[in-house]
């Protein structure tokens, strides 16, 4: 289980394969996904005009999604490494794929974005993608029979709270995963303290003034907070507040 430190300089064969063929497969899937509605709509002679698709009211909708997509790519890719391609093409990243990958890394005690970590995360993401595709296929196939169960108020309520439940369960995993591998980052949390403070103040402010939550704005927030977190972590690391030590020297 010894780790080779030197492997980080060159790409591992799996990482190289993923960045080449995984990316290629992703592009093919993307082209297919974009072409699909056009093929169907052409067949039924129902292609809308450009102005019907892109106008003031629809641009406002797209404006919500563009930053979310960018922020997902910027913040999840460094965690998921070469397993990102499969993760992004199958979607449901925050509520399914990312926690699944983190869980797998925790079980095998590997670090994210190492050759081992990427391979393990890919196993988890692939299994998870296959599961979702199969479960959804079954659900769609039997939709008329099973829909009453999923329309129960209790089931609907529970499914609205997947993200908070996820963060409750992930918090523990996060702390143990920072201890995995052969290095331990000490006080890493200090680097995101400014983010914690800013987002806390904003959340309380919005709650007090409007009674609402910033939940729908998380994509935007991450996009703006990521540079803050990186800069403050860098400063804290330079000042010696955040330290990286060998695991053996800290093991209880």
């Amino acid at each position, binding site marked *: 289980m010894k780790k080779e430190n030197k492997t*980080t300089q060159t790409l591992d064969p*799996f990482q190289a394969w*993923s960045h080449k063929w995984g990316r290629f497969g992703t592009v093919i*899937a993307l082209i*297919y996904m974009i072409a*699909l509605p056009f093929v*169907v709509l052409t*067949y*039924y002679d*129902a292609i809308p005009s450009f102005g*019907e698709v892109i106008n003031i009211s629809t641009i406002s*909708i797209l404006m919500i999604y563009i930053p*979310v*997509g960018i922020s997902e*790519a910027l913040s999840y890719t*460094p965690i*998921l490494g070469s397993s*990102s*391609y499969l993760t*992004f*093409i*199958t979607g*449901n990243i925050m509520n*399914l794929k990312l926690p699944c990958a983190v869980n*797998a890394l925790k*079980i*095998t005690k590997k670090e*994210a*974005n190492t050759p081992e970590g990427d*391979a393990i995360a*890919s*196993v*988890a993401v692939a*299994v998870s*993608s296959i599961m979702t*595709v199969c479960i959804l296929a079954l659900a769609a196939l039997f939709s008329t029979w099973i*829909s009453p169960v*999923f*329309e129960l108020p209790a089931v609907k309520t529970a499914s609205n*709270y*997947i*993200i*908070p439940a996820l963060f*409750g*369960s992930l*918090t*523990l995993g996060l702390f143990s995963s*920072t201890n995995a591998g052969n290095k331990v*980052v000490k006080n*890493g949390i200090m680097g995101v303290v400014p*983010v*914690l403070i800013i987002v*806390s103040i904003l959340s309380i402010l919005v*709650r007090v003034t409007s009674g609402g939550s910033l*939940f729908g704005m998380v994509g935007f927030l*991450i996009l703006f*907070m990521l540079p803050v*977190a*990186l800069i403050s972590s860098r400063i804290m*690391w330079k000042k010696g507040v955040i330290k990286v030590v060998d695991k053996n020297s800290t093991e209880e």
Partner: protein
Amino acid sequence: MKEIIQSPLLLTLVTIGLIYILGFSLVYLKKAYSRCLEMGITKEELKKVIKSSVVFSIVPSLSIVVGLFALISVLGVVWSWWRLSVIGSLSYESLISSSVSTALGFSSNAEMLANATGREFGVVMILMSIGMLSGFFILIPFGKKLSMSVNKTENSSTWKYVLSGTFMLCLFAVYVPVLLFGDTIQAAVMLTGLVIAVGLGILAQKSPKLRWLGDFIMAFSMIGGMISSILWTSIF
């Protein structure tokens, strides 16, 4: 619109697309699995990872099914099934479909399903297909650079270890205060999940018989947290 959402052509194309996604996942699984073995990760460990990933995926997949049924009422079975199986996510797809119905001038989703023309449904299909693409404009050209950046930066220094952890910590630093201060029920659900996770962690450590629990802490605490929301919504 009915003609399009129930069309055999759409069904065929969606099925082909999903078979491709399934095949793509299987190839990834095979490649990653053999690479893991080569790197000395044991079959037992991999078995654990697969088992835990299956369990971990069931509950979120079931919530996606809930979303599927919500979307079916707006977009029909085939298109909803397709959208939730690829890219996007439950929350985006549900939001985009409902905002599109208002943007098109319908007062409700049901009204859109009943009265929208084929062209109007076309607008929905195209918007949903292009809405989530922005991430790929980053991932496809810069994915390699982004993931390498964590590995490569100043290889001799320890910054890369700090850097790789910062992304995850930042996600937490944004989500946790939003959940904690934004909504009482969300906060209660999150704390319940955390308490269950800590409890299970202690149980798995203390009792050798319950050691297997350790691999399912995250899955079980998430299920527990979600179920607790039923209680919290009735209290608050």
